[in-house]
């Protein structure tokens, strides 16, 4: 240990109360940073998972141009071309064909414009969680081509219940008027108003018949094995499909608003984390600056004896670094411990579950333990503790030996 490190360390020990407060401030601040980041990451991850699992999936494959205008005329004719390619690509958990159309639904009590999905019930149950959100009735099965599942708000608006009849009206792909009646077989309550108010499901075959589509489909929805491999999987699918004929879109491209909201959420979180970081930095600055003011005479003696100004500033920096190092160690341990504990146990926010459901977030949030984030914030706090010492270090190094020695 060099003399300057030794002196710096002893200065930390000299005022244990003040040093303890700084170390506590750094520890608590860093633990808060780690926990907050993990909490937001966990909530965001849950949001993405719930949002993609509920309906839109991880990747959608359409005929080129479909995403722009959603016209059923722009449908996939030969879906086997796509499915045969997808079979040879790893990392796919499940896939399901769909027909997607905007139609009018009406009952004897009212009508509403909705998004109609024609689904393959068995494939859909592997891909999405809609079947888990049934409030009443049962989920569709193949062959139930006269049945329909609607959202709970839509059912309330149409004043219909299980077994009641509703009529779908649209335009067929051949330009003809398409209309058919269906029995309400199930009512879904997803918690997301957008779905509960505007969604109806019928079988793929029923949709193809209603819209005169033959064997055509609107899209194939893909679910990846891992949520963080979506972009890579999308790229691989693109590399294996004729992208002039088909468009391959991740959920971020299908629903850019949701993705932008997530990005905004991240920026907002980063802003809060930055403010916490400033508070931590202020704590370190305060202690080190007070330590410098308290030792002006000692610095004067050292300067008089031949210690160079830069050696004095180096010593102050070492002191700040040591405070930061100890604080970072405890902060990392506390933060990681908290995140680990709650990542298993979860944080129950059922008191605000209705608000969370609108954002596709469950009432129990599991903070996400991300080693890279923990390492990043720990390093940032440590670096801040070094950089923040520049002010007191400069002050100490600019002292005049004579004036400093006379300082009481």
């Amino acid at each position: 240990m060099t003399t300057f490190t030794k002196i710096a360390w002893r200065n930390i020990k000299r005022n244990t109360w003040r040093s303890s407060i700084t170390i506590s401030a750094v520890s608590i601040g860093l633990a808060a940073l780690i926990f907050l980041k993990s909490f937001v990451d966990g909530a965001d991850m849950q949001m993405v998972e719930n949002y993609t699992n509920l309906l839109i999936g991880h990747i959608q494959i359409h005929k080129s141009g479909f995403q722009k205008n959603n016209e059923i005329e722009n449908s996939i004719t030969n879906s086997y071309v796509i499915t045969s390619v997808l079979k040879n690509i790893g990392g796919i958990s499940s896939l399901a064909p769909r027909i997607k159309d905007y139609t009018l639904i009406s009952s004897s009590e009212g009508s509403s414009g909705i998004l109609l999905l024609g689904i393959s019930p068995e494939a859909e149950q592997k891909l999405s969680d809609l079947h888990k959100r049934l409030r009443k009735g049962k989920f569709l099965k193949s062959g139930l081509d006269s049945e329909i599942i609607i959202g709970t708000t839509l059912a309330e608006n149409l004043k219909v219940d299980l077994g009641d009849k509703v009529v779908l009206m649209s335009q067929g792909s051949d330009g003809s008027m398409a209309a058919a009646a269906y029995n309400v077989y199930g009512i879904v309550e997803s918690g997301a108003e957008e779905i509960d108010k505007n969604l109806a499901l019928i079988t793929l075959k029923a949709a193809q018949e209603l819209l005169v589509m033959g064997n055509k489909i609107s899209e194939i929805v893909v679910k990846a094995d891992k949520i963080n491999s979506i972009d890579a999987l999308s790229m691989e699918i693109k590399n294996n499909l004729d992208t002039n004929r088909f468009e391959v879109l991740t959920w971020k491209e299908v629903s850019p608003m949701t993705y932008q909201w997530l990005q905004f959420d991240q920026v907002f979180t980063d802003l809060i984390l930055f403010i916490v970081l400033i508070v931590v930095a202020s704590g370190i600055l305060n202690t080190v600056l007070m330590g410098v003011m308290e030792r002006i005479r000692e610095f004067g003696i050292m300067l008089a004896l031949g210690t160079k100004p830069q050696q004095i500033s180096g010593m102050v920096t070492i002191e700040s670094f040591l405070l930061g190092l100890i604080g970072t160690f405890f902060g990392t341990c506390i933060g990681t411990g908290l995140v680990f504990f709650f990542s298993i146990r979860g944080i129950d926010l059922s008191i605000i579950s209705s608000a969370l459901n609108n954002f596709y977030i469950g009432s129990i949030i599991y903070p996400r333990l991300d080693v890279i984030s923990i390492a990043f914030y720990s390093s940032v706090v440590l670096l801040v503790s070094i950089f923040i010492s520049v002010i007191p270090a400069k002050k100490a190094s600019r002292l005049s030996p004579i004036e400093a020695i006379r300082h009481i």
Partner: protein
Amino acid sequence: MNRATIISVKDVTKIYREKHSRIESVALDHVTLNIEEGEFVALAGPSGSGKTTLLNLIGALDKPTGGQIIIDGTPLSTLNSSQAADFRLRKIGFIFQAYNLIETLTTEENAEYIALLQGMTPKQRKHETFHILKDLGLEAYLRRRPSQLSGGQQQRVATARAILVRPKIILADEPTANLDSKTGSALIDLMYAMSQNLNITFVFATHDKMVMDKAKTLIHLHDGRIVV
């Protein structure tokens, strides 16, 4: 034997100005003196006569308002703060009236501080430190902090720190002021021997008659001027 001039003070004036006012006080008024290598010099005079100010200027701790100081061939006015620190480290040892030990370091660490800054090897440093502290009767207090030592012991540690690396010049401001006569006398004898044997130049600011008697050259200051 002709000895080289190691300290040359030419027409030096030091005026202190109070901050935010025009009040000035002249601490040194056109002082000129030369001190040769190995001399044992005492600056005498009443409080406020300018003794400490002159020591601070010779030690490159402060800058004169006018005039020039040349130490061992180096004009001090040419040095910036970092160069001045290095100059003090290499050429000058200080013994302050108030000891000015570093509170967080032990007796041994305080004594070896300058040696360490100079880059002396750890083995040599430990060896030299132990011997000098032993000579000053401090071998039993190596691990003690300044607050655990008496005033006399602290002054001896400060002396050990100054003489350990055998600088060319040692500037001592009232080194015996807080010592009993026996300890003070022993300390001055030790310094005198070093002056004779190692050719170290000693400059004391003192009121102590014993120091003045021992000095080869006695310079009297009064109101910032040298009086014969």
